[in-house]
Protein backbone atom coordinates (compact mmCIF):
# COMPACT_ATOMS: atom_id res chain seq x y z
CA UNK A 1 0.00 0.00 0.00
CA UNK A 2 2.89 2.36 0.77
CA UNK A 3 4.41 1.71 -2.62
CA UNK A 4 1.12 2.46 -4.24
CA UNK A 5 0.81 5.69 -2.32
CA UNK A 6 4.33 6.71 -3.32
CA UNK A 7 3.48 5.98 -6.92
CA UNK A 8 0.35 8.10 -6.71
CA UNK A 9 2.16 10.99 -5.14
CA UNK A 10 4.82 10.88 -7.82
CA UNK A 11 2.09 10.77 -10.43
CA UNK A 12 0.30 13.78 -9.07
CA UNK A 13 3.56 15.72 -8.80
CA UNK A 14 4.39 14.97 -12.41
CA UNK A 15 0.94 16.14 -13.38
CA UNK A 16 1.22 19.38 -11.46
CA UNK A 17 4.65 19.98 -12.98
CA UNK A 18 3.14 19.46 -16.39
CA UNK A 19 0.50 22.02 -15.52
CA UNK A 20 3.20 24.53 -14.57
CA UNK A 21 4.99 23.79 -17.80
CA UNK A 22 1.88 24.74 -19.71
CA UNK A 23 1.41 27.95 -17.82
CA UNK A 24 4.74 29.36 -18.88
CA UNK A 25 4.40 29.30 -22.67
CA UNK A 26 0.79 30.33 -22.34
CA UNK A 27 1.69 33.55 -20.59
CA UNK A 28 4.28 34.27 -23.20
CA UNK A 29 1.81 33.77 -25.96
CA UNK A 30 -0.63 36.26 -24.49
CA UNK A 31 2.02 38.98 -24.56
CA UNK A 32 2.25 40.84 -27.84
CA UNK A 33 5.95 40.12 -28.36
CA UNK A 34 7.35 36.70 -27.41
CA UNK A 35 9.85 37.21 -24.61
CA UNK A 36 12.14 34.45 -25.83
CA UNK A 37 12.84 36.15 -29.14
CA UNK A 38 13.61 39.45 -27.50
CA UNK A 39 15.93 37.86 -24.99
CA UNK A 40 18.43 36.68 -27.58
CA UNK A 41 19.32 40.01 -29.24
CA UNK A 42 19.26 41.72 -25.84
CA UNK A 43 22.55 40.00 -25.05
CA UNK A 44 24.34 42.10 -27.65
CA UNK A 45 23.37 45.53 -26.41
CA UNK A 46 20.84 46.97 -24.02
CA UNK A 47 19.54 49.77 -26.37
CA UNK A 48 18.23 47.08 -28.72
CA UNK A 49 15.29 46.73 -26.38
CA UNK A 50 14.08 50.21 -27.24
CA UNK A 51 13.78 49.33 -30.90
CA UNK A 52 11.97 46.08 -30.21
CA UNK A 53 8.48 47.38 -29.30
CA UNK A 54 8.25 49.60 -32.38
CA UNK A 55 9.33 46.74 -34.57
CA UNK A 56 6.86 44.43 -32.89
CA UNK A 57 3.88 46.69 -33.52
CA UNK A 58 4.88 46.96 -37.17
CA UNK A 59 5.47 43.28 -37.62
CA UNK A 60 2.70 41.87 -35.43
CA UNK A 61 0.82 41.16 -38.65
CA UNK A 62 3.86 40.99 -40.87
CA UNK A 63 4.75 38.31 -43.33
CA UNK A 64 4.43 34.85 -41.84
CA UNK A 65 1.71 35.87 -39.38
CA UNK A 66 -0.59 32.92 -38.76
CA UNK A 67 -4.11 34.08 -39.56
CA UNK A 68 -6.55 31.85 -37.70
CA UNK A 69 -9.79 31.73 -39.65
CA UNK A 70 -12.68 30.64 -37.45
CA UNK A 71 -15.67 29.15 -39.25
CA UNK A 72 -18.41 26.57 -39.18
CA UNK A 73 -18.04 23.66 -41.59
CA UNK A 74 -21.81 23.20 -41.63
CA UNK A 75 -22.54 26.28 -43.68
CA UNK A 76 -22.42 25.71 -47.43
CA UNK A 77 -21.55 27.42 -49.67
CA UNK A 78 -19.67 29.87 -47.42
CA UNK A 79 -17.65 27.30 -45.52
CA UNK A 80 -18.08 23.58 -45.96
CA UNK A 81 -16.48 20.34 -47.04
CA UNK A 82 -16.21 20.45 -50.82
CA UNK A 83 -16.52 17.81 -53.53
CA UNK A 84 -13.02 16.54 -52.83
CA UNK A 85 -13.50 16.21 -49.11
CA UNK A 86 -11.43 19.36 -48.51
CA UNK A 87 -12.31 22.47 -46.55
CA UNK A 88 -13.72 24.99 -49.00
CA UNK A 89 -16.36 27.60 -49.66
CA UNK A 90 -16.51 31.26 -50.56
CA UNK A 91 -15.41 32.53 -47.15
CA UNK A 92 -12.57 30.03 -46.91
CA UNK A 93 -11.25 30.96 -50.36
CA UNK A 94 -11.55 34.67 -49.60
CA UNK A 95 -9.70 34.26 -46.30
CA UNK A 96 -6.98 32.34 -48.09
CA UNK A 97 -6.75 35.11 -50.71
CA UNK A 98 -6.36 37.71 -47.94
CA UNK A 99 -3.57 35.62 -46.42
CA UNK A 100 -1.86 35.31 -49.78
CA UNK A 101 -2.14 39.08 -50.22
CA UNK A 102 -0.21 39.78 -47.01
CA UNK A 103 2.03 36.72 -47.07
CA UNK A 104 0.30 35.37 -43.97
CA UNK A 105 0.00 31.72 -43.15
CA UNK A 106 -3.58 30.53 -43.31
CA UNK A 107 -4.82 28.35 -40.46
CA UNK A 108 -8.29 26.85 -40.62
CA UNK A 109 -10.05 26.76 -37.24
CA UNK A 110 -13.35 24.97 -37.78
CA UNK A 111 -15.49 25.37 -34.68
CA UNK A 112 -18.83 24.40 -33.29
CA UNK A 113 -21.14 27.33 -34.11
CA UNK A 114 -22.68 27.38 -30.63
CA UNK A 115 -19.23 27.93 -29.14
CA UNK A 116 -18.11 30.63 -31.60
CA UNK A 117 -17.90 33.44 -29.03
CA UNK A 118 -15.90 31.35 -26.60
CA UNK A 119 -13.52 30.38 -29.42
CA UNK A 120 -13.08 34.01 -30.50
CA UNK A 121 -12.64 35.41 -27.00
CA UNK A 122 -10.24 32.66 -25.99
CA UNK A 123 -8.11 33.49 -29.01
CA UNK A 124 -8.25 30.13 -30.71
CA UNK A 125 -9.32 32.08 -33.81
CA UNK A 126 -8.76 35.66 -35.00
CA UNK A 127 -12.20 36.21 -36.47
CA UNK A 128 -15.58 34.67 -37.18
CA UNK A 129 -15.85 34.53 -40.96
CA UNK A 130 -18.53 32.09 -41.92
CA UNK A 131 -21.59 33.70 -43.44
CA UNK A 132 -21.81 35.70 -40.23
CA UNK A 133 -24.79 38.04 -39.95
CA UNK A 134 -24.14 41.60 -38.79
CA UNK A 135 -27.75 42.60 -38.17
CA UNK A 136 -28.70 42.39 -34.53
CA UNK A 137 -25.04 41.92 -33.52
CA UNK A 138 -23.77 45.37 -34.53
CA UNK A 139 -22.32 46.15 -31.09
CA UNK A 140 -21.03 42.69 -30.20
CA UNK A 141 -18.04 42.52 -32.53
CA UNK A 142 -15.68 44.71 -34.46
CA UNK A 143 -17.05 44.32 -37.98
CA UNK A 144 -15.28 44.38 -41.30
CA UNK A 145 -17.13 45.86 -44.25
CA UNK A 146 -20.08 43.74 -45.38
CA UNK A 147 -19.23 41.52 -48.33
CA UNK A 148 -22.51 39.75 -48.97
CA UNK A 149 -26.21 40.56 -48.72
CA UNK A 150 -28.74 37.97 -47.83
CA UNK A 151 -32.47 37.68 -47.46
CA UNK A 152 -34.55 35.39 -45.28
CA UNK A 153 -37.27 33.71 -47.29
CA UNK A 154 -39.89 31.04 -46.95
CA UNK A 155 -39.35 27.93 -49.03
CA UNK A 156 -42.34 25.77 -49.95
CA UNK A 157 -43.21 22.97 -52.34
CA UNK A 158 -44.60 24.34 -55.63
CA UNK A 159 -47.83 22.41 -55.23
CA UNK A 160 -48.37 23.36 -51.58
CA UNK A 161 -50.94 26.05 -52.31
CA UNK A 162 -49.01 28.49 -50.14
CA UNK A 163 -48.31 31.67 -52.07
CA UNK A 164 -47.92 34.39 -49.48
CA UNK A 165 -46.84 34.82 -45.90
CA UNK A 166 -50.46 35.08 -44.79
CA UNK A 167 -51.11 31.56 -46.10
CA UNK A 168 -48.72 30.24 -43.48
CA UNK A 169 -51.33 30.50 -40.71
CA UNK A 170 -51.86 27.08 -39.13
CA UNK A 171 -48.93 25.58 -41.01
CA UNK A 172 -45.83 23.85 -39.68
CA UNK A 173 -42.66 25.76 -40.47
CA UNK A 174 -39.10 24.48 -40.05
CA UNK A 175 -35.96 26.48 -39.29
CA UNK A 176 -32.37 25.72 -38.32
CA UNK A 177 -31.28 26.65 -34.82
CA UNK A 178 -28.98 29.70 -34.34
CA UNK A 179 -29.64 31.09 -37.81
CA UNK A 180 -30.79 34.58 -38.63
CA UNK A 181 -34.09 33.18 -39.90
CA UNK A 182 -34.60 31.59 -36.50
CA UNK A 183 -33.75 34.82 -34.69
CA UNK A 184 -36.06 36.78 -36.94
CA UNK A 185 -39.02 34.50 -36.25
CA UNK A 186 -38.46 34.85 -32.51
CA UNK A 187 -37.80 38.58 -32.49
CA UNK A 188 -40.69 40.75 -31.29
CA UNK A 189 -39.54 43.50 -33.62
CA UNK A 190 -39.00 40.98 -36.40
CA UNK A 191 -41.45 38.33 -37.48
CA UNK A 192 -42.56 36.96 -34.11
CA UNK A 193 -46.10 38.03 -34.92
CA UNK A 194 -46.03 35.97 -38.10
CA UNK A 195 -44.58 32.93 -36.37
CA UNK A 196 -47.33 33.11 -33.74
CA UNK A 197 -49.80 32.28 -36.53
CA UNK A 198 -47.97 29.03 -37.37
CA UNK A 199 -49.30 25.79 -36.01
CA UNK A 200 -45.75 25.22 -34.83
CA UNK A 201 -42.17 26.25 -35.52
CA UNK A 202 -39.93 23.21 -35.72
CA UNK A 203 -36.30 23.91 -34.84
CA UNK A 204 -33.74 21.68 -36.56
CA UNK A 205 -30.09 21.00 -36.02
CA UNK A 206 -29.39 21.38 -39.74
CA UNK A 207 -31.32 22.53 -42.79
CA UNK A 208 -30.57 19.22 -44.47
CA UNK A 209 -32.88 17.47 -42.03
CA UNK A 210 -35.48 20.23 -42.29
CA UNK A 211 -35.43 19.95 -46.08
CA UNK A 212 -35.86 16.22 -45.84
CA UNK A 213 -38.90 16.77 -43.64
CA UNK A 214 -40.28 19.21 -46.19
CA UNK A 215 -39.81 16.63 -48.94
CA UNK A 216 -41.45 13.99 -46.79
CA UNK A 217 -44.39 16.30 -46.09
CA UNK A 218 -43.80 16.45 -42.34
CA UNK A 219 -43.61 20.23 -42.48
CA UNK A 220 -45.15 22.77 -44.86
CA UNK A 221 -42.43 25.37 -45.23
CA UNK A 222 -38.87 26.28 -44.29
CA UNK A 223 -37.66 29.70 -43.19
CA UNK A 224 -34.16 30.07 -44.58
CA UNK A 225 -31.53 32.43 -45.98
CA UNK A 226 -31.94 32.70 -49.70
CA UNK A 227 -28.33 31.61 -50.33
CA UNK A 228 -28.58 28.49 -48.17
CA UNK A 229 -31.97 27.83 -49.73
CA UNK A 230 -30.53 28.11 -53.23
CA UNK A 231 -27.85 25.66 -52.23
CA UNK A 232 -30.41 23.17 -50.88
CA UNK A 233 -32.65 23.51 -53.93
CA UNK A 234 -29.88 23.15 -56.49
CA UNK A 235 -30.55 19.87 -58.22
CA UNK A 236 -34.04 19.63 -56.76
CA UNK A 237 -37.21 20.42 -58.63
CA UNK A 238 -40.53 21.43 -57.20
CA UNK A 239 -39.57 23.95 -54.52
CA UNK A 240 -39.88 27.73 -54.63
CA UNK A 241 -39.42 30.77 -52.45
CA UNK A 242 -42.41 32.94 -51.63
CA UNK A 243 -42.14 36.41 -53.19
CA UNK A 244 -42.35 38.24 -49.88
CA UNK A 245 -39.14 38.17 -47.88
CA UNK A 246 -39.08 37.80 -44.10
CA UNK A 247 -36.16 40.15 -43.71
CA UNK A 248 -32.74 41.02 -45.02
CA UNK A 249 -29.26 41.03 -43.59
CA UNK A 250 -25.62 41.48 -44.39
CA UNK A 251 -22.63 39.22 -43.89
CA UNK A 252 -19.32 40.52 -42.64
CA UNK A 253 -16.29 39.34 -40.71
CA UNK A 254 -16.50 39.65 -36.94
CA UNK A 255 -13.32 40.48 -35.00
CA UNK A 256 -12.68 40.85 -31.29
CA UNK A 257 -13.36 44.38 -30.19
CA UNK A 258 -10.00 46.11 -30.02
CA UNK A 259 -8.40 44.18 -32.88
CA UNK A 260 -8.70 47.33 -34.99
CA UNK A 261 -5.39 46.87 -36.74
CA UNK A 262 -6.24 43.39 -37.98
CA UNK A 263 -9.73 44.49 -39.01
CA UNK A 264 -8.30 47.45 -40.97
CA UNK A 265 -5.78 45.21 -42.69
CA UNK A 266 -8.46 42.73 -43.74
CA UNK A 267 -10.68 45.56 -44.98
CA UNK A 268 -7.79 46.93 -47.04
CA UNK A 269 -7.14 43.46 -48.45
CA UNK A 270 -10.81 43.06 -49.35
CA UNK A 271 -10.64 46.35 -51.29
CA UNK A 272 -7.56 45.17 -53.12
CA UNK A 273 -9.10 41.79 -53.92
CA UNK A 274 -12.23 43.46 -55.26
CA UNK A 275 -10.09 45.81 -57.37
CA UNK A 276 -8.00 43.05 -58.91
CA UNK A 277 -11.01 40.85 -59.67
CA UNK A 278 -10.20 38.04 -57.23
CA UNK A 279 -13.43 38.62 -55.30
CA UNK A 280 -15.46 38.34 -58.47
CA UNK A 281 -13.54 35.29 -59.69
CA UNK A 282 -14.05 33.41 -56.43
CA UNK A 283 -17.69 34.49 -56.35
CA UNK A 284 -18.33 33.02 -59.78
CA UNK A 285 -17.44 29.58 -58.46
CA UNK A 286 -20.47 29.83 -56.17
CA UNK A 287 -23.48 30.64 -58.37
CA UNK A 288 -25.91 30.26 -55.44
CA UNK A 289 -24.52 33.36 -53.78
CA UNK A 290 -22.94 35.30 -56.63
CA UNK A 291 -25.87 37.68 -57.06
CA UNK A 292 -25.72 38.62 -53.40
CA UNK A 293 -22.07 39.61 -53.21
CA UNK A 294 -22.23 43.33 -52.52
CA UNK A 295 -18.68 44.60 -52.98
CA UNK A 296 -18.67 44.40 -56.79
Amino acid at each position, binding site marked *: *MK*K*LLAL*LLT*GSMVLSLAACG*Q*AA*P*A*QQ*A*SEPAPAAEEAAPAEEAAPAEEAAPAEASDSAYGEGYVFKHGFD*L*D*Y*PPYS*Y*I*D*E*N*GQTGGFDVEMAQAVCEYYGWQYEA*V*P*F*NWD*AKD*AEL*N*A*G*SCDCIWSGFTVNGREDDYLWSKAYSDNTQMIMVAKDSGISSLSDLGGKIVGVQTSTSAYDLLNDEEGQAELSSTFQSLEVY*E*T*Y*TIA*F*NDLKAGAIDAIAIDVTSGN*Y*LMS*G*EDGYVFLDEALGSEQYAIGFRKGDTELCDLVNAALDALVADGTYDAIGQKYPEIYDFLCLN
Partner: protein
Amino acid sequence: MTLSTMLSTMAAGMLRTCGIFALTLIGSLPLGMVVALLRKSRSPIVRGIIRVYISVIRGTPLMLQLLVWYFGPFYLFEWSIRGWRFPALILGFIVNYAAYFAEIYRGGIESMPVGQYEAAEVLGYTKTQTFMRIILPQVIKRIMPSITNEVITLVKDTSLAFTLAYQEVFSLAKQISASQTSFMPFVIAGVFYFIANYAVQFAMERIEKALNYYR
Protein backbone atom coordinates in the same frame (compact mmCIF):
# COMPACT_ATOMS: atom_id res chain seq x y z
CA MET B 1 -18.95 14.27 -54.17
CA THR B 2 -18.39 10.70 -55.25
CA LEU B 3 -19.11 7.89 -52.86
CA SER B 4 -15.45 6.94 -52.72
CA THR B 5 -14.42 10.50 -51.75
CA MET B 6 -17.10 10.47 -49.10
CA LEU B 7 -15.93 7.12 -47.79
CA SER B 8 -12.28 8.08 -47.70
CA THR B 9 -12.98 11.44 -46.03
CA MET B 10 -15.09 9.73 -43.42
CA ALA B 11 -12.62 6.90 -42.96
CA ALA B 12 -10.05 9.53 -42.01
CA GLY B 13 -12.58 10.77 -39.46
CA MET B 14 -13.09 7.24 -38.20
CA LEU B 15 -9.35 6.96 -37.59
CA ARG B 16 -9.56 10.07 -35.41
CA THR B 17 -12.53 8.53 -33.61
CA CYS B 18 -10.46 5.40 -32.96
CA GLY B 19 -7.66 7.64 -31.67
CA ILE B 20 -9.94 9.22 -29.08
CA PHE B 21 -11.23 5.77 -28.18
CA ALA B 22 -7.83 4.18 -27.70
CA LEU B 23 -6.29 7.08 -25.77
CA THR B 24 -9.31 7.31 -23.50
CA LEU B 25 -9.14 3.62 -22.63
CA ILE B 26 -5.39 3.70 -22.09
CA GLY B 27 -5.81 6.60 -19.69
CA SER B 28 -9.06 5.83 -17.93
CA LEU B 29 -8.78 2.09 -17.24
CA PRO B 30 -5.75 2.51 -14.93
CA LEU B 31 -6.90 5.88 -13.58
CA GLY B 32 -10.24 4.32 -12.68
CA MET B 33 -8.43 1.72 -10.58
CA VAL B 34 -6.50 4.44 -8.77
CA VAL B 35 -9.73 6.31 -8.09
CA ALA B 36 -11.45 3.14 -6.85
CA LEU B 37 -8.61 2.50 -4.41
CA LEU B 38 -8.52 6.11 -3.23
CA ARG B 39 -12.23 5.93 -2.67
CA LYS B 40 -11.48 3.22 -0.08
CA SER B 41 -8.63 5.23 1.43
CA ARG B 42 -8.34 5.55 5.20
CA SER B 43 -8.17 9.33 5.02
CA PRO B 44 -11.64 10.88 5.13
CA ILE B 45 -10.36 13.91 3.16
CA VAL B 46 -9.21 11.77 0.25
CA ARG B 47 -12.46 9.79 0.35
CA GLY B 48 -14.43 13.03 0.37
CA ILE B 49 -12.56 14.48 -2.60
CA ILE B 50 -13.06 11.30 -4.59
CA ARG B 51 -16.76 11.21 -3.80
CA VAL B 52 -17.20 14.79 -4.95
CA TYR B 53 -15.20 14.06 -8.10
CA ILE B 54 -17.33 11.03 -8.95
CA SER B 55 -20.62 12.76 -8.29
CA VAL B 56 -19.70 15.88 -10.26
CA ILE B 57 -18.46 13.85 -13.22
CA ARG B 58 -21.48 11.56 -13.24
CA GLY B 59 -23.88 14.37 -12.53
CA THR B 60 -22.97 16.66 -15.43
CA PRO B 61 -23.09 16.04 -19.17
CA LEU B 62 -19.82 15.01 -20.81
CA MET B 63 -20.45 17.67 -23.44
CA LEU B 64 -20.32 20.37 -20.77
CA GLN B 65 -17.21 18.86 -19.22
CA LEU B 66 -15.45 18.96 -22.58
CA LEU B 67 -16.25 22.66 -22.94
CA VAL B 68 -14.89 23.34 -19.47
CA TRP B 69 -11.68 21.41 -20.17
CA TYR B 70 -11.09 23.31 -23.38
CA PHE B 71 -12.17 26.84 -22.49
CA GLY B 72 -11.53 26.66 -18.74
CA PRO B 73 -7.79 27.43 -18.87
CA PHE B 74 -8.52 30.64 -20.75
CA TYR B 75 -11.51 31.85 -18.77
CA LEU B 76 -10.04 30.91 -15.39
CA PHE B 77 -6.35 31.70 -15.87
CA GLU B 78 -6.18 33.59 -19.17
CA TRP B 79 -3.80 30.99 -20.57
CA SER B 80 -3.53 30.67 -24.31
CA ILE B 81 -5.44 27.61 -25.47
CA ARG B 82 -3.63 27.32 -28.77
CA GLY B 83 -3.08 23.66 -29.54
CA TRP B 84 -5.05 22.70 -26.45
CA ARG B 85 -8.06 21.31 -28.34
CA PHE B 86 -7.01 17.70 -28.63
CA PRO B 87 -5.35 17.37 -25.19
CA ALA B 88 -8.44 18.93 -23.59
CA LEU B 89 -10.66 16.50 -25.44
CA ILE B 90 -8.67 13.46 -24.34
CA LEU B 91 -8.36 14.69 -20.75
CA GLY B 92 -12.10 15.30 -20.63
CA PHE B 93 -12.83 11.80 -21.84
CA ILE B 94 -10.28 10.13 -19.57
CA VAL B 95 -11.40 11.93 -16.42
CA ASN B 96 -15.03 11.20 -17.24
CA TYR B 97 -14.60 7.54 -18.02
CA ALA B 98 -12.27 6.96 -15.08
CA ALA B 99 -15.12 7.91 -12.75
CA TYR B 100 -17.42 5.31 -14.27
CA PHE B 101 -14.72 2.65 -14.37
CA ALA B 102 -13.86 3.41 -10.74
CA GLU B 103 -17.40 2.61 -9.69
CA ILE B 104 -17.34 -0.63 -11.67
CA TYR B 105 -14.05 -1.61 -10.03
CA ARG B 106 -15.40 -0.69 -6.60
CA GLY B 107 -18.44 -2.86 -7.17
CA GLY B 108 -16.17 -5.73 -8.14
CA ILE B 109 -13.81 -5.27 -5.20
CA GLU B 110 -16.63 -5.01 -2.66
CA SER B 111 -18.27 -8.13 -4.00
CA MET B 112 -15.34 -10.23 -2.76
CA PRO B 113 -16.17 -12.21 0.38
CA VAL B 114 -14.36 -11.11 3.57
CA GLY B 115 -13.30 -14.72 4.08
CA GLN B 116 -10.78 -14.39 1.27
CA TYR B 117 -9.03 -11.50 3.02
CA GLU B 118 -9.00 -13.45 6.29
CA ALA B 119 -7.62 -16.56 4.62
CA ALA B 120 -4.91 -14.51 2.91
CA GLU B 121 -3.96 -12.90 6.21
CA VAL B 122 -3.67 -16.29 7.89
CA LEU B 123 -1.44 -17.45 5.05
CA GLY B 124 0.84 -14.46 5.68
CA TYR B 125 0.00 -12.36 2.62
CA THR B 126 0.56 -8.64 2.96
CA LYS B 127 -2.32 -6.35 2.04
CA THR B 128 -0.76 -5.45 -1.30
CA GLN B 129 -0.11 -9.12 -2.10
CA THR B 130 -3.66 -10.03 -1.16
CA PHE B 131 -5.03 -7.38 -3.45
CA MET B 132 -2.74 -7.93 -6.41
CA ARG B 133 -2.66 -11.74 -6.38
CA ILE B 134 -5.99 -12.79 -4.98
CA ILE B 135 -8.61 -10.08 -5.18
CA LEU B 136 -7.76 -8.23 -8.42
CA PRO B 137 -7.65 -11.27 -10.74
CA GLN B 138 -11.11 -12.30 -9.57
CA VAL B 139 -12.45 -8.75 -9.76
CA ILE B 140 -11.35 -8.40 -13.37
CA LYS B 141 -13.16 -11.59 -14.34
CA ARG B 142 -16.28 -10.51 -12.55
CA ILE B 143 -16.51 -7.00 -13.98
CA MET B 144 -15.77 -7.80 -17.61
CA PRO B 145 -19.41 -7.59 -18.78
CA SER B 146 -19.84 -4.15 -17.19
CA ILE B 147 -16.55 -2.99 -18.69
CA THR B 148 -17.64 -4.16 -22.12
CA ASN B 149 -20.82 -2.16 -21.72
CA GLU B 150 -18.90 0.97 -20.85
CA VAL B 151 -16.37 0.50 -23.65
CA ILE B 152 -19.14 0.21 -26.21
CA THR B 153 -20.73 3.35 -24.84
CA LEU B 154 -17.37 5.05 -25.22
CA VAL B 155 -17.22 4.22 -28.93
CA LYS B 156 -20.48 6.08 -29.40
CA ASP B 157 -19.65 8.88 -26.95
CA THR B 158 -16.61 9.85 -29.04
CA SER B 159 -19.12 11.66 -31.24
CA LEU B 160 -19.35 14.29 -28.49
CA ALA B 161 -15.95 15.49 -29.71
CA PHE B 162 -17.92 17.60 -32.18
CA THR B 163 -18.50 19.99 -29.25
CA LEU B 164 -14.86 20.97 -29.56
CA ALA B 165 -15.06 20.82 -33.35
CA TYR B 166 -12.70 17.88 -33.55
CA GLN B 167 -13.14 16.37 -36.99
CA GLU B 168 -14.12 12.88 -35.95
CA VAL B 169 -16.46 10.75 -37.98
CA PHE B 170 -19.74 12.17 -36.69
CA SER B 171 -18.73 15.82 -37.11
CA LEU B 172 -17.70 14.98 -40.65
CA ALA B 173 -20.98 13.16 -41.27
CA LYS B 174 -22.89 16.29 -40.24
CA GLN B 175 -20.74 18.56 -42.35
CA ILE B 176 -20.76 16.39 -45.45
CA SER B 177 -24.48 15.92 -45.03
CA ALA B 178 -24.90 19.71 -45.07
CA SER B 179 -22.69 20.21 -48.10
CA GLN B 180 -24.15 17.31 -50.08
CA THR B 181 -27.75 17.72 -48.84
CA SER B 182 -27.81 13.98 -48.32
CA PHE B 183 -28.32 11.51 -45.51
CA MET B 184 -25.78 9.08 -46.88
CA PRO B 185 -22.98 10.33 -44.56
CA PHE B 186 -25.08 9.43 -41.51
CA VAL B 187 -25.68 5.94 -42.87
CA ILE B 188 -21.95 5.53 -43.46
CA ALA B 189 -21.20 6.82 -39.95
CA GLY B 190 -23.70 4.31 -38.54
CA VAL B 191 -22.01 1.46 -40.36
CA PHE B 192 -18.58 2.62 -39.16
CA TYR B 193 -19.75 2.75 -35.55
CA PHE B 194 -21.34 -0.65 -35.83
CA ILE B 195 -18.20 -2.21 -37.26
CA ALA B 196 -16.11 -0.64 -34.50
CA ASN B 197 -18.45 -1.89 -31.80
CA TYR B 198 -18.60 -5.32 -33.35
CA ALA B 199 -14.82 -5.46 -33.13
CA VAL B 200 -14.96 -4.32 -29.50
CA GLN B 201 -17.56 -6.96 -28.68
CA PHE B 202 -15.52 -9.65 -30.39
CA ALA B 203 -12.33 -8.67 -28.57
CA MET B 204 -14.06 -8.48 -25.20
CA GLU B 205 -15.65 -11.89 -25.67
CA ARG B 206 -12.25 -13.35 -26.43
CA ILE B 207 -10.79 -11.76 -23.31
CA GLU B 208 -13.66 -13.06 -21.20
CA LYS B 209 -13.13 -16.56 -22.57
CA ALA B 210 -9.41 -16.38 -21.88
CA LEU B 211 -10.11 -15.32 -18.29
CA ASN B 212 -12.58 -18.09 -17.79
CA TYR B 213 -9.92 -20.59 -16.78
CA TYR B 214 -11.79 -22.31 -13.95
CA ARG B 215 -14.70 -23.53 -15.99
